[in-house]
């Protein structure tokens, strides 16, 4: 794409998306909304950092553990193929 094409695309973009007025401002006072948000944050219980894993991963892990306990001799073979 050469400079001429770029300028054409810029002009088209400016026509498609008219610039926002320099004096744009919110229609309402947003401070009460900010305070509400801060209050919600203070009231909401802090989420515990949890280690979430889907159930089938736990099932697979459990199966592997059971297999390793039942047949301990297979552990080195397992480790070899990891």
């Amino acid at each position, binding site marked *: *794409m050469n400079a001429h094409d770029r300028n054409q695309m810029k002009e088209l973009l*400016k026509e498609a998306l008219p610039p*926002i007025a320099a004096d744009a401002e919110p229609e*309402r006072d*947003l401070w009460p909304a*900010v305070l509400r948000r*801060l209050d919600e944050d203070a009231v909401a219980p802090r989420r515990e950092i949890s280690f979430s894993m889907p159930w089938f991963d736990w099932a697979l892990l459990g199966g592997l553990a059971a297999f390793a306990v039942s047949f301990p001799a297979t552990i080195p073979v397992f480790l070899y193929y990891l």
Partner: protein
Amino acid sequence: MPYGSSLVTSGVLHRFREGDLDAFEALFREHQRFVFGWVLRMVRNPATAEELTVETFWRIHRARERFQPDRPFAPWARRIATRAALDWLRAQRPEVELTAEMASALPSASTGDPGIAAEIRSKAALAFARLPPSLRAAAVLAVVEEQPHKEIAAALGITVGAVKLRVFRALRLLRKDLEQQGITP
């Protein structure tokens, strides 16, 4: 008073960092219009820009301990606002209401066939909405809003060269998309 000539003293910035709500309100009152305007330029929707302004100041409050009071507040706030707007853009599906609103807000054509020109502009707006958010943000701020590349780079946390590259890629992808729709700008 032009933006940047701050009424907020260094003491207010220090108190804000320590969690003083009055100091935070003073900063909010001084910067909310600027933050709203910046976010609006990125998301092109006043109601969303209001929500994101609230989100930005909430993030600012949450991150206050990382703020360095000896540095200016405005660029820091703009960077947080940019991240909030980018998060919102990433969460949106392209071609949803945003573009419909864009298309309806388009000014009427001044030359040629108004119907055809409006259709091209509408398709260009739709194609623009399909661009990746990071390219969209750089292009709209640099090309449409004509913001200095240095400020865009600081807000996006990238270099000026990277801003230019993103704008170039955005324009190239936009052209390609329009060509696929049978429109040769």
